[in-house]
């Protein structure tokens, strides 16, 4: 039986990488005494898969993973028992049961939205300019950036990955493509916006926070990954 677990990753946890977070959850599930399923063989491992990895330094309140259990407890009990094992920075928000043969969360992910907030070393004036410039950037037909990988550099048009981009109070809001089809990192959009406005980009000056991870429903609308299943009573 596969369940989907929604959790937050904040505070110190932004410095914990994706693989380490997986190991953290594996241990937490064990401490919680939940009946997790193991693969067969000499070094059995828990059947767990994570939705969309988060870059180091980014916080989130919309993270997901799927895991298989031999027996279940109610959603509320799942949440309670897991939260009793969490250290500060991770909180389990929801647990749902997936129907048999449901697609895993990783293959479902279609988009994520974020808040970007100024941290330090950033002039207020520039931040205002950035907030005001967001709309103009979105009016462009093409937004070209230089994508660097270990081996190559190439110019890429990221416009198609930006669904929404606007000032939300004092924060910058963005809804971006995510997942296996096209994945756009919020840092790249911030960098592109800075470039567009001729503001020097400094990664340490922004805190990125993921709000939610979405999939597409049958009508093609973006909905929460929790829509795949139902609460366990």
């Amino acid at each position, binding site marked *: 039986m596969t369940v989907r677990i929604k959790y937050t990753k904040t*505070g*110190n946890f932004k*410095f*914990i*990488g994706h693989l*380490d*977070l997986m*190991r*953290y959850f*594996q*241990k*937490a*599930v*064990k*401490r919680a*005494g939940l009946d997790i399923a*193991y693969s067969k063989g*000499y*070094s*059995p491992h828990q059947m767990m898969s994570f939705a969309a990895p988060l870059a*180091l*330094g980014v916080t989130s309140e919309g993270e997901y993973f799927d895991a298989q259990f031999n027996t279940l407890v109610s959603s509320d009990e799942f949440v309670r028992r897991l939260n009793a*094992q969490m*250290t*500060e*920075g991770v909180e389990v928000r929801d647990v749902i049961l997936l129907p048999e043969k449901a697609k895993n969360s990783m293959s479902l992910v279609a988009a994520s939205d974020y808040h970007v907030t100024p*941290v*330090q*070393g950033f002039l207020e004036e520039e931040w205002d300019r950035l907030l005001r410039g967001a709309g103009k950037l979105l009016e462009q037909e093409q937004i070209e950036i230089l994508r660097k990988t270990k081996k190559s550099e190439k110019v890429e048009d990221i416009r198609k990955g930006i669904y929404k981009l606007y000032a939300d109070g004092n924060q910058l809001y963005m809804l971006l493509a995510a997942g296996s089809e096209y994945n756009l990192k919020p840092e790249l959009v911030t960098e592109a916006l800075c470039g567009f406005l001729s503001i020097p980009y400094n*990664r*340490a000056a922004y*805190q990125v926070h993921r709000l939610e991870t979405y999939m597409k429903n049958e009508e093609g609308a973006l909905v929460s990954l929790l829509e795949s299943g139902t609460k366990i009573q």
Partner: protein
Amino acid sequence: MDMTKRALSDEILMQVEKPARYIGNEVNMVKKNPADVEIRFAMCFPDVYEIGMSHLGMQILYDQFNRREDTYCERVYSPWPDLDRIMREKNIPLFTLETQSPVMDFDFLGITLQYEMCYTNILQILALSGIPIWAKDRGNGVPFVFGGGPCSYNPEPIADFFDAFYIGEGEVSYDKVFDVYQAAKRENLDREEILYRFSKIPGIYIPSMYEVSYKEDGTIRAFFPKREGVPEKIQKQLVMNLDEAPYPVKPLVPYIRATQDRVTLEIMRGCIRGCRFCQAGMIYRPTRLKSVEVLKQYARDMVKSSGYEEISLSSLSSSDYQCLKELTAFLIEELGEKEGVNLSLPSLRIDAFSLDVMQRVQDIRKSSLTFAPEAGTQRLRDVINKGLTEEEILNGAMQAFHGGWNKVKFYFMLGLPTETEEDAEGIPALCEKVAEAYDHIPKEERTGRVSITASASFFVPKPFTPFQWAAMLDGDTYSDRAHHVKDVFRKQPKAKSMKFHYHESYVSVLEGVFARGDRKIANVIYDAYKSGCIFDAWTEFFDYEKWLAAFAKNGVSMDFYTTRERPVEEVLPWDFIDIGVTKQFLASEWEKAKQGVVTPNCRESCSGCGAAKFGGGVCYDRKN
């Protein structure tokens, strides 16, 4: 209290490798409010986080100290060179993980000394904390710097950097240290007087309270307390009832993968064997066991409180644990099969029992057999009192080959006392025999080609062993010998199935100096550190040239400490420590070694080493 406070800014944490090394807040971390306690203890492992977090002894003391309501023990590890640079540039003081507060604010800084090559890291810790490097320069209000662990059995090379050393197992006397400190604080005593009071606690050595004088030839003339009431000899402290000693049943669980990323179950302390090169085998005498019932309970509790899916046994020689069968059966059946916890095995003596256990817990095709004969010939194995015969090795290997194994690992040492060319050549010869034995396995039983990996390290004589008087080989002779062995390996008929590696000589030579060094070494360590040496245990940072320069600058000869055989009458720098095992026993073992006479292990018969004076352990097993 805000537990998310951080000593380092996001910007810095995002710049350094593995920022999780510095943020604390791990599962089972102890949280207290520093304002509610009277004693703040910063416990330090002077190496990188992943290594330090793997150390059982530190977890034991962390747990024990924090059981005291008036004490908050926090952890410190060496900042990796990337962060070290930033901290120096920006003047960020070294901080503890728990409350992220400066080490300077603490009452104690306790540093565990597990290997000699961490000595420059101690200076790094002190410097980054803002604590004067030389103990004599520290005034009131500066934390008391304590050392402990195996290297404190000869603390002399680093004595001038420490206020105190704790000799022995930490569980015993720290409560007294804290109580004495509390009282002294109430009386408003100054640093010197507090140290004087510490000096009267069993096991505590205060280097500044002793005077050393030297002869013209550089050896020690006399070593004596400077002040009335300071003990002449320091007694090693030992836990006699391990079942009653505190054990960290809620171990700290790191976020990033540590070197030992599993539950560690300590099954016994000490070793009955008495290999003559082995320091642990002497300083932890007598052998003491934990009862199997207690261990089963610990195993259950620790798996539950940590969520680990792997458990390993810790001891010097697990095969000698008398209830090993019962314990492994429990771990495999109750925790393994029912709860998915893998048992990772320490190296066991290869026999029918251990092969059976190995078969149940690991994939034979991926695992290998391990033998540690240490020397290539029976003659030399008798000299070092390693009770492992060629016949035992061949029998064990054959049984394993029949069981489906085809990979064998061998550990040897080169440069052992009395070693000849023939002994060295015995290494490839022994490996060849094992490789040939595989030919006797019927083809249909074989799982592939046999593969033998032998490695040799450079023997370093250690204090409190029968070889403490022995000459260490010089670096070049060792390298030549290792080279020669490699050549002989190439000429073996089964050369294609065998690999031979050997360690470089440089690090071992330095280890040799530190292991048996005296107070004259301190300036060398200081100068090496000043010239940029840190993380010497890491090949990528080790810089031998800088070390050579530091020795030259101070006019200190390395050979004096390494290649010189000491007469038994010589006053050794560590003679003031009483480990229970007598100097007389060690000397007779040294004599027997030269004659190639073996000594039975403690269970076969007692050899009267002196450790029986602790009143327990294996010395009394037979008698009741």
